[in-house]
């Protein structure tokens, strides 16, 4: 692939997928100050993986796998930032959300949903992020590496946990 082709393909992927990549980055992290860093990390990994892109069947699966795996390893590179591994309590989470520019633009329902998601484990945050972005169970199973049935089981459990946190019914 020539440099020009690579840049063109990258720009196209960026344009089409930047919003869902951003949403997944945002959902996977508890420290929202690091979203830009993770997004950048994902884009770097996309750039480095472009050569193999033609062999991949579905672009969304390809992009999501890179995003999810970058999010899984993201802790490693930015390990020195304080508080990354601590469990935040409700008050701390609320404070964090008040300061986020992205969060300020959201309506109350989405803010509450984000707060409830932030209380889940990382892997569950990623799975529900994919689900909310309308990714099918089959595709989530290809991204995560578990069976579609088990994806369904996990999503039901997550929905119940979210409903409990948000104080309503599923």
């Amino acid at each position, binding site marked *: 692939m020539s440099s020009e082709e690579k*840049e063109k393909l*990258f*720009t196209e992927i*960026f344009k089409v997928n*930047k*919003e*869902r990549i*951003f*949403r997944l980055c*945002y959902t996977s992290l508890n420290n929202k100050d690091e979203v*830009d*860093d993770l*997004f950048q990390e994902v884009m*770097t*990994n996309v*750039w*480095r*993986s472009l050569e*193999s892109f033609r062999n991949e069947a579905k672009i969304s699966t*390809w992009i999501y*796998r*890179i995003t*999810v*795996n*970058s999010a*899984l*390893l993201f*802790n*490693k590179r930015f*390990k020195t930032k304080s508080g*990354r*591994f601590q469990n935040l309590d409700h008050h701390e989470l609320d404070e964090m959300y008040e300061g*986020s*520019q*992205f969060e*300020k*633009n*959201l309506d109350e*329902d*989405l803010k509450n*949903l984000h707060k409830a998601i932030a209380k889940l*484990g*990382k*892997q569950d945050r990623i799975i529900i992020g994919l*689900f*909310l*972005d*309308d990714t099918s169970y089959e595709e989530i199973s*290809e*991204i*995560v*590496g*578990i*069976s579609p049935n*088990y994806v369904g089981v996990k999503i039901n459990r997550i*929905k119940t946990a*979210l409903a409990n946190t948000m104080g*309503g*019914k*599923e």
Partner: protein
Amino acid sequence: MKEIEVLKNNWQKQKPAAGDKFNYEEITSASFSRLKKFEKRILKINIVKTAGIIIAITLFIWSMLFELPVSAFRIIAVIIIVIGISMFWLKYLRLQLKTAKLNVRENSLDFIDDVLKNFSEQREFFRKDFKVFGVLLLTSINIIYLDLLTDLPVLERIGFHVLMSAVLIAVIFFGVKFRMRRFKKENEPIENELIKMKEDLKE
């Protein structure tokens, strides 16, 4: 909880906020040059490190075999050191390359397996290979001292061997300890998190 389809619909309308650090509007030529620079960064760092090692080995060989009259002892010592450093360095580079080439396009479960395997290889490298390299270094330096100090009284020679060995052992001990502490600080939290995730993903 609000109807899930409504939430999904609202969820998908969320866009990156303007004013954040990253330029979500467009990819500029500056972004491309940063990406290209980053792509070659690890390669460049390893080329510089390897060049440094080659220069150090060359100077060492020169000083041992060309600046002084050649002896069988020193030839053996030089061979041990060169083989030791080369093997140690090649393994280090292989690990670096493996880490840089982790396949982020795999499904998460396979990716987690690869990362955990990579962590355990790195741990093994610091625990085992570092020590093997230390023993080789200790042996060869002692052989060189054995050869160079022949004119000194026995007690003085023993003193030099003991002192030099003690210094080397201390350097290797604290070197391994420092690297292991850094490894633990950098990798163990993510390693534990990945192990937990892997367990959670088991059906």
